[in-house]
């Protein structure tokens, strides 16, 4: 996969052993390096090997964490809410229906300001029953108050999980790290495993100012009357906006410490691009190959890849896109009756730019339920966008009508 972390060669960067592992194992190693204290999960393909690996680590004593087996994802997240209230660093992983089942408790975790980290391996929702990649599961959780970070490579998955704990614990907002089913979760590539001591320096232990303490009993998550509820929500909103700074800072610091950083919005050959492609996850990797081919032909095209979806990096997107004539957004997701979700978000984000310096946003929905998005598919999307061809509510690419 073509990844382009903005590496800064730094003499201080800690280097680690490189292992050839799947994205799921990269996540498990990251959780272990983050010294998670409680893991609670329910198995679901394609996530399962994350928590299987973690359970092995717990079983062997390699990881000093409580692994709580539960009967559902709703209980898994409920366990983590309890664990996090006691001040434990808490982690889980899920997919698709599992994430949907957690939905209620996701609100609870965010509302109670618990810095839980969840890895969601994108998988299509049924029916029809489908285990392949599709972002609609994680994007459906848009309004729960969770931050969301989308990864392009196994290395980025590992790095992002470690960053996620620091972001979460800095603002007390839970963070979801998202990766593609199979193309990341079950595909092996070289991943550098950072040394534990360096991770410990980057991620100090979680010490909440208040937590469950039987010697000093408190009521957590009780009734809040209308006179205060809105202020609570405002505090969550305000702290969520701070994630933009906190995440950027964590990424920068991570770069200094480990030699890899990604930015909130990755720009690939975007400078001076007339047509920008926007994609997330592994689609961006494939797209980079196509961009290179078009550039070789002299076409000024580039790519933007937002890593952060919530909060949406509006300023970064504006600054990345403002000079392009057109922006073609590939969405491996759909909001029914509205269209591709990233396209909708991006339109809203760019709307504040003066109409003259605002690219036309074209929407393409592709690859739902794990259908391959090959270089050829992206090439056709670019051709259509170059010619300004797109349906107003988004073109469904390669739809067999």
């Amino acid at each position, binding site marked *: 996969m073509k990844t382009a972390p903005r590496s800064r060669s730094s003499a*201080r960067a800690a280097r680690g052993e490189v292992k050839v592992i799947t994205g799921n194992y990269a996540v498990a190693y990251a959780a272990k390096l983050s010294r998670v204290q409680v893991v609670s999960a329910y198995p679901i393909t394609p996530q399962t090997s994350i928590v299987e690996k973690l359970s092995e680590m717990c079983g062997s004593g390699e990881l000093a964490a409580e692994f709580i087996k539960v009967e559902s994802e709703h209980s898994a997240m409920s366990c983590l809410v309890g664990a996090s209230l006691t001040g434990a660093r808490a982690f889980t992983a899920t997919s698709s229906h599992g994430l949907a089942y957690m939905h209620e408790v996701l609100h609870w975790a965010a*509302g*109670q*300001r618990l810095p839980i980290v969840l890895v969601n391996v994108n998988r299509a929702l049924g029916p029809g029953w489908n285990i392949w990649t599709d972002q609609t599961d994680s994007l459906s959780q848009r309004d729960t108050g969770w931050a969301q970070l989308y990864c392009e490579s196994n290395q980025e998955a590992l790095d992002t999980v470690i960053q996620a704990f*620091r972001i979460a*614990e*800095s*603002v*007390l907002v839970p963070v979801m790290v998202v990766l593609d089913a199979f193309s990341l979760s079950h595909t092996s590539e070289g991943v550098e495993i950072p040394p534990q001591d360096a991770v410990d*320096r*980057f991620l*100090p232990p979680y010490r*909440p*100012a*208040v937590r469950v303490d039987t010697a*000093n*009993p*408190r*009521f*957590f*998550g*009780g*009734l*809040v009357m209308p006179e*205060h509820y809105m*202020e*609570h929500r*405002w*505090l*969550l909103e*305000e*702290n969520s906006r*701070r994630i933009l700074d*906190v995440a950027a*800072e*964590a990424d920068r*610091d991570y770069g*200094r*410490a480990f030699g890899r950083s990604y930015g909130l919005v990755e720009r690939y050959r975007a400078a001076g691009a007339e047509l920008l492609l926007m994609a997330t996850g592994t689609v961006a990797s494939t797209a980079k190959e196509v961009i290179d081919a078009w550039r070789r032909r002299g076409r000024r095209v580039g790519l933007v890849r937002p890593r952060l979806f919530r909060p949406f990096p509006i300023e970064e997107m504006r600054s990345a896109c403002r000079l392009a004539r057109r922006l073609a957004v590939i969405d491996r997701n759909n909001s029914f009756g509205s269209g591709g979700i990233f396209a909708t978000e991006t339109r809203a984000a760019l709307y504040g730019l003066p109409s003259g310096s605002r690219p036309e946003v074209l929407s393409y929905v592709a690859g739902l339920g794990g259908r391959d998005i090959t270089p050829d598919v992206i090439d056709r999307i670019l051709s259509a966008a170059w010619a300004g061809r797109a349906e107003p509510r988004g073109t469904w690419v390669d739809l067999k009508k």
Partner: protein
Amino acid sequence: MRRAKRTISPKRYNPKLPASAADAKGFRGASDMPAASVSVPGGSMLVCETGSWRNVRPVFEDKTPPCLPRCPAGENIEGHLDLLARGRDAEAARLLREDNPFPATCGRVCYHPCESGCNRAEWGGAVAIHSVERYLGDLALRLPAEKPAARAGKSGRKHRRVAIIGAGPAGLTCAWHLAKRGIEAVVFDREPEPGGVLRTGIPAYRLPKDVLAMEISRIVEAGVELRLGVEVGRDIAFEDLRSAYRAVFLACGYHRPRALGVPGESLKGVEDGLDFLRRINYGQKVTPGRRSVVIGGGNTAMDCARAALRLGSHPLVIYRRTRGEMPAIPEEVLEAEREGVEFLFLMQPAEVRGKGGRVAAVRCQRCRLGEPDASGRRRPVPIKDSFQDLAADTVLLATGEDADLSFLPSGWTLGDNGAVLDPATGHEVEGVFAGGDLTTSRKMVANAVGSGKAASWVIEKYLSGRSWSESLAELEHAPTSFSVARLEKAGAPPRSSEIVDATSINFDHFPKLSRASAGRLSSEEAIRSFAEVNQGFDRATAEAEARRCFHCAVCSRCDNCFVFCPEGIVRHKPGKACGDYEIDLSYCKGCGICAAECPRGAISMIRENR
């Protein structure tokens, strides 16, 4: 470098939290509010007693296990099994004897209706309560006897003396319970040895004579006086007894054989079954003929047939109904069959035919089952012209007995509850009570023990100053199956009327374990002598069997409620009441998990009335 340092201490935006209740009042706005909903320290948590959400509350409430009301002797079965399971064998044996002075006997001859209700039935078989009773009964024989209670002074003697007619299980049980409470009990029996039908009727292969003798000597040691060889009505007048004793207990049993009412009954070789057994039990030489025909389907018939078998005869039992209607204990029928006793069902004798004054055959008539009679069993209806002659050298009649109450003033009748009615006055006869076979619905040893116990209870109340009718009314609180030990315990509530059945048992908490069975002599060996057939349980088997008991309805302090309460508010308490638990109702939300997880239905959920 300064920036690099920041990597170790990232910016944090921790929520502010109120330091005290005062701080929590009057927020100006988001800037001074905690970020999450958290109560003030030491604040409202304690005053928010979530128990107020409750609609139902759990209460520890022992109910009644199904075995208990089925025991005619009123034994605290669950209690002695509990002690035995904990390895406290001697205490278990003592508890058992508190209610029944004949545990070694009942452990051998009882028909154990207790086991028929056992909730273990579907989970490896009913607990072998009967065999455990025998183990404990035998153990009790080796324990020191109960000390007689101090008696009232000489002047009050008459007022504390009770005459008991019949030294069978009912009479001796009554005497024993009275003696233990300081009341002088004098037992009269026409037989030279005590025990009634236990001594004269039940053969030694079921009840060894030394076991019975030891059990009775325990009763006598407790302060019971026996007057043997004295027949009331012949050697002493009933009215003399009444004037010499404050109360009289009639427990003389059913001894008078019922006549068969067919021709040839008086032929040589036709014998009364009970008399046949009596002679064997007294060690007389008895030699039945080659072929004995036993007529009847009760326990006496089985005893006659199996005894005859041991004396070299080939017994054939004929019964006018089918196997299902036989009043004998089913195990006895099986044992008899296993040993080689033959059976013919739906046959009734029409005539005993003789040759030279001696019996030669029984002429039988076939029957079919008709409509149910008063006993609920289907009546045998003879089929016309369906006679058959069965060869016989000996005929043993075991068709039931009647009471011989000719010593009572004429006209007196016995009520079901044990009261004796005098039609001349229309009232119960004061101070006279009847029990044992005279009144019990089933003529079994355990029923006799139960009725003796009830009699002692009524008589004691009467002797302590209540009127006779008040004393009889006590029976309502102390039905036939009651535990004297429990009734006597001050403050012990009567058993709940709610019987816990299998639907209240949480089987998930019990391993499925098979019922143990006692060893027995092989049939070939058994029929060679009158040695005891059933070998009983050893200590390990008895204790293991006791551990199979679910302790239905009774808290056994298993800690399930303590463990499963999601609120952690079922706690151990220092004292000991029903269980060792208390529930903090301030925080109990009435979820019912403790009741659901109680393996034995000892926790009830009751509605809150607020």
